């Protein structure tokens, strides 16, 4: 007999509202469904009411963990639209903050993954080291999260050389501790028994579902915006894209922990090379009509922003697509056929970020009622009551 087990909207597994519906028989998962939309804040619409320089403040608040990824992707889109030059020093500073953010995000995930399989010691230890990264970010930018560094055409403020040098001991410590964490995970037989061979996403499925970031890299696809379409100073840095072929949860853990080490290496190189003088902002005056695309490799995968400009000081359209949105469908391939015990860690293994993704409500047909049409018809009704002009679609629905 199949039963439906809800994980969410409020569940100790996750710290944000999310809703998975697992159809199970005994312990085996037969089907999985994801419902999103509990966290809708209308960010894209709000963005159309702000000037180009105000939007970074807004998109920084899409997500607390990717609070550099969204403004960076937005700035890349604006710079693409206006063909803006970014000074060399600003590029270094942007990349440095981006990589520090990746370190703290991956450590955060490692801790949570430990918590989900009942290993709270890993949880506490990973977050203890993550705290050092946050302190470092506070030293460099003034904020633990929401660093407020980005603006189209450059960065908001310079980081003095003295502060950059102070980052070195922390990075050394992190390198040692990340290696310890990596070895602790790989050497632990119980951990291996729990993570190896479950939730396998093979390369074909990863491509078919359009998986992004560490989720796809753990399935053997070297898919990384930093190397495919380089922005910032990644072309000048010595680093490599980490991939694993196994595609299971253990591979995803490995990829993330090794990426943490790569990021630490990159941060050290950036601190060595960052120019001492020079401008940090090209101070763009206006954005011409047209559109622009910004792709940024966020810790969870490609973060995509689209900007349409009509020559005024505000974007007329701003579209955001978070990486988790593309990683959700892979559950069809990874969860089905596994047990409930494994499903929780498999769901968590794509590092889902709900506040990034759940900016949109998906309305779907249920019992022959088209909710979308119903909502539009209701809007038409209200507009008519208020004596407002109807759009062509609403006129059709009204009849």
């Amino acid at each position, binding site marked *: 007999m199949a039963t439906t087990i809800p994980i969410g909207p409020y569940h100790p597994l996750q710290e944000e509202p999310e809703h998975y519906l697992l159809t199970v028989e005994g312990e085996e998962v037969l089907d999985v469904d994801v419902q999103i939309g509990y966290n809708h804040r209308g960010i894209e619409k709000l963005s159309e009411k702000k000037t180009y320089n105000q939007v970074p403040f807004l998109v920084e608040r899409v997500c607390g963990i990717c609070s550099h990824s969204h403004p960076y992707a937005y700035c890349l889109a604006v710079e693409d639209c206006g063909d803006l030059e970014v000074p060399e020093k600003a590029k270094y500073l942007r990349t440095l903050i981006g990589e520090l953010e990746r370190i703290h995000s991956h450590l955060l995930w490692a801790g949570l993954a430990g918590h989900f399989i009942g290993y709270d010691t890993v949880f506490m230890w990973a977050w203890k080291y993550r705290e050092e990264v946050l302190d470092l970010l506070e030293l460099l930018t003034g904020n633990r999260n929401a660093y407020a560094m980005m603006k189209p055409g450059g960065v908001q403020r310079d980081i003095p050389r003295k502060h950059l040098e102070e980052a070195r001991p922390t990075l050394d410590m992190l390198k040692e501790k990340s290696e310890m964490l990596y070895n602790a995970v790989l050497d632990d037989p*119980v951990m291996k028994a729990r993570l190896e061979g479950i939730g396998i996403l093979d390369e074909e499925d990863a491509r078919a579902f359009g998986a992004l970031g560490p989720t796809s890299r753990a399935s053997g696809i070297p898919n990384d915006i930093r190397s495919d379409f380089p922005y910032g100073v990644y072309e000048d840095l010595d680093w490599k894209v980490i991939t694993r072929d196994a595609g299971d949860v253990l591979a995803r853990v490995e990829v993330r922990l090794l990426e943490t080490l790569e990021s630490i290496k990159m941060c050290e190189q950036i601190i060595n090379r960052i120019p001492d003088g020079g401008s940090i902002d090209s101070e763009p005056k206006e954005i011409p009509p047209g559109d622009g695309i910004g792709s940024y490799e966020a810790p969870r995968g490609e973060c995509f922003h689209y900007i349409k400009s009509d020559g005024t000081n505000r974007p007329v359209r701003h579209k955001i697509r978070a990486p988790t949105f593309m990683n959700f469908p892979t559950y069809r391939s990874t969860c089905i056929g596994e047990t409930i015990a494994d499903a929780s860690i498999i769901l968590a293994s794509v590092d889902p970020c709900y506040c990034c993704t759940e900016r949109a409500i998906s309305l779907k047909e249920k019992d022959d009622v088209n909710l979308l049409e119903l909502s539009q018809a209701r809007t038409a009704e209200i507009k008519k009551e208020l004596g407002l002009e109807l759009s062509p679609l609403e006129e059709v629905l009204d009849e």
Partner: protein
Amino acid sequence: MVGRLVFDFFVFPGLFFTLGVGILASWLVRKVSALVQWRVGPPLLQPAYDIAKLFGKENIIPKGSSEWGFLIVPLLGPIGLLLASIILVKANYLATAFIGDVIVVLYLLVLPALAVVLGGMSSGNPLSSLGANRELRLIAAYELPLILAVTTAIVKTGGGLRLAIFSSQWVAASFSGAFAFIAALLCIQAELGFIPFDISEAETEIMGGPLIEYSGPLLGLFKISHLMALLVLPLFLITVFLGGFSTGWGALWGAIKYVLVLVVLILIKNTNPRLRSDQALKFFWYGAAPLGLIALVLAVVGNLIGIAWL
């Protein structure tokens, strides 16, 4: 006589003592876990505050549950453990024992786990019946090695089915005894519901499993059952394998043994992830049970050819 019985049941070694030590043990569990995890940990009486809080709250009986079962089942655990505690403690410090008390204790120790199963089944929630299923599977997994290990101790001590005989000698100070002790320690870990065997509650998977629908005093009774288990189960281990305790300095020595066993259990809890229920079953049947069997064979052979250290 009646006064003596009332004292035995409600003060020492009954309710007051068992619960009091259980609260201290629970604090120890949380404090040691906190130290391993670089946290500060709770104040000494936090477990007592938690229980007191639960008894000040409302009971909610879910629709669709079997009401009488739901209400009565939480009492099973504390009652079983209370009796076990009285028998164990008296066998240790008064050496009053009856033939077969070890078997009675083994039966009584299953009661809390059965209470969890019955409570989960009567809640009428899919997650709690899932948890009850997992608990049943876990009982099936750890009972076999536990009984093998205790049988080894019985053989080792010459076949007397009295706890008082165990507590006068160190069973674990021989090969068979040591193997049996390791197997029994792992079973106790599972019986306490400690990670890696907290499969039936697994809050990040099934949100507390069988206890999901319980609230207020009824949940408090389950928590009390867990507190008592923290005293009774390690005490059972040291009585059977590590020489138990006696009066005077022997009580202090016994307390040290108890704390050491508890700390070992806590450290195992904090250095492992949770196993899946099929993995736990495999672990006990293919790992712990053969270990118990080897111990039993060694003990029998040792008895036959008269080698005490085997």
